[in-house]
């Protein structure tokens, strides 16, 4: 398949115990409608399970939805596990409720981008296409 024909593959995931997945599902649907291939993990996954699914599904980017306040623990752990698996090139983006002062440390810990609740879906679509649209 020519590189230009390959669709962007995205894993939308919920980590930890946060059960609110409407945002995750709306984003997943929006990305699908924008022509991407989307896999959703369902609720309550561990970082290990998410990384395993990302490798198995050969995704370009992982999108984590997180609203419970556990982001400072769980997001750096995901990047660490990706590195350990030799998958540094897989993008890691997060959406949800994340205080301003946490954004710097999260980016330093390898989170590529953060979208706060209320971000229009087209903005997320645009970001992913720009950044991951022409890989491989």
């Amino acid at each position, binding site marked *: 398949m020519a590189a230009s024909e390959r669709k962007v593959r995205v894993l*939308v995931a919920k980590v*930890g*115990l*946060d*059960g*609110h*997945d*409407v945002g*995750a*599902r*709306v984003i*997943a*649907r*929006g990305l*699908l409608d924008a022509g991407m291939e*989307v*896999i*959703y*993990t*369902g*609720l*309550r996954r*561990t970082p290990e399970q998410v990384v395993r699914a990302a490798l198995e599904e050969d995704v370009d980017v992982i999108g984590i939805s997180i609203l*419970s*306040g*556990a982001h*400072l*623990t*769980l997001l750096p752990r995901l990047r660490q596990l990706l590195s350990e698996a030799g998958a540094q090139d897989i993008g890691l983006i997060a959406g949800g*409720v*994340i*205080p*301003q*002062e946490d954004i710097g440390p999260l980016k330093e810990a390898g989170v590529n981008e953060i979208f*706060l*609740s*209320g*971000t*229009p*879906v*087209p903005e997320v679509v645009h970001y992913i296409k720009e950044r991951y649209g022409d890989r491989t």
Partner: protein
Amino acid sequence: MRIDERGGVASAGTESGEAIDPSKEKHVNDSLPHTEAQSAAALSDAAKVWREQHYDAEAKEKGERRAFLTDTGIEVRPLYTPLDVQESGRSYLEDIGFPGQYPFTRGDRAGMFRTESFAVSAYSGFGEAQDCNQRFRTLVDWGAEQLLVALDLPTQCGYDSDHEMSTGEVGQVGVAIDTMADMEALFDGIDITQVKRVGTLGNSIGPIVLAMFAVLGERRGLDWSQYTVNLQNDPLKEYIARGTQILPAEAAARLATDCVAWCADHAPHWSPMTVCVNHINAGGAGSSRAAAIALSNALHYIDLLLEKGYGIDQVAPLLHMFPDERHDFFVSVANLRALRRSWARLMKERYGATRPEAMALRMTVYGHGQETLQEPLNNIVRIGFGTLAYVLGGASYIYIASYDEAVSTPTEESVKVALRTQQILAHEHGFTDTIDPLGGSYFVETLTNQVEDQIRRALREIEDAGGAQAVISTGLGRRWMTEGAVRRQRAIDSGSRPWVTVNKWPQRPNVPNTAFRIDSRTVQKQMQRVARVKATRDPARVEAALAAIDEACRTGANMVPPTIEAVKALATVGEICERWKSHFGVFQPSTDF
């Protein structure tokens, strides 16, 4: 009494086929100054003239600002008149009636807020029990009449604080409760007989939290009749909307109804089950479809209770509902009125209830608006209006969101604003001076009828699909929610649903650094308390209590009595849930979107 007769006449010529009583018609004309001596036909003509020659003419010239559509899909017309009420075919006495009387459209009690205001309630919890106890004392000082404990996610999902799945979540969205020792620390110094109700959600751990509240009173030498416990204890909606499910849905429904059954036998004035519309609506279903899903869940719980041998008049008063509508103020008022009427009819017509308490639906609500991360102080206004609709709709127990709740666990200051907002609604502006003040509004009565029809149609669709369990197993519930959530998102992205600071005068979302943070000692403190409890409790007593839980899983005996013993023996929430999981299995998360 003319108003009642006016209503009675409004029903004349309806499907009931009553003839118009001329003596009453005189009163109608007297009491409708705007229509004076006009007959229905003259009114119809006048309305047509106004619409075509005046409104449409102006609308054609200036254009309407936008399409006027409620979130539930009802088209809002420019004006409502007595014609709308007449054409609905409803009768005042049969369909609206009086507060505290069937079908309870105007209120669940005769006196409503004139004799007792709605309960000013606080949903609160964070960190570990001792720190949280200080907040509870403060809330009671400020005038909170009801305390609902917000539990952290590990507790709600049945994991102890030291479990791997609890990493990063202990004390985050609520207080961590691992054992009865935590519960006692949480309520230390708080007189539970001096507040109207205490309770928690505990949707997936109903028997455990019920047992803890029962033991809390017992330890203080209180009789269960001396205080009132309220639980949400509605596991079925967790599978559709909220996500704290632990077991397969059927086992969860059984444990939840065990709580209701136990209360029917031991504490019949407690409210051990609050069947929720709110999370299903917030998740996208829309308030009418969400109400229908919640009703079908309630009917399922009731059916299980009747199978256990309880009577409808015995169990229906123990169930409350938790309606929700955040988009449209008047739909919200209508939704509460329509839901009371729907409930009354189901209890009477389907189950043959005879006690008024079994037909009069009591409602708990949580005041919200469409809150934003942008300029969060504006949320005070949004939440105030959203809550006012619930007051005007006649809810009995009112909780309210804090303006920073979209950001994190609310700060003390924002909680105070929320509590004061409720007190202002209860006591200022005359909001609560007369009962059902919007009853009789042509618009609100029309909406009430339309919402009732929407709920009835959706409930029929659910029952045709197989009922409450099918809403979960066939994915119908999630499908309705996703459809609605995507529709709402598009309405926001396109601007067809105006939202200040989001799509009108848009601002960047921002989560301020002042967001409430859990004290860093919290997790450590909680771990130490659990370790201490485990080291000092009687292991043989714990094992015996857990074995009794195994036995109840096998026999189908009511789960509450052995759970009370386990709680007294200081078994942890996680230990009890592990026994349930080993018997019933665990839920499988859906990967559909």
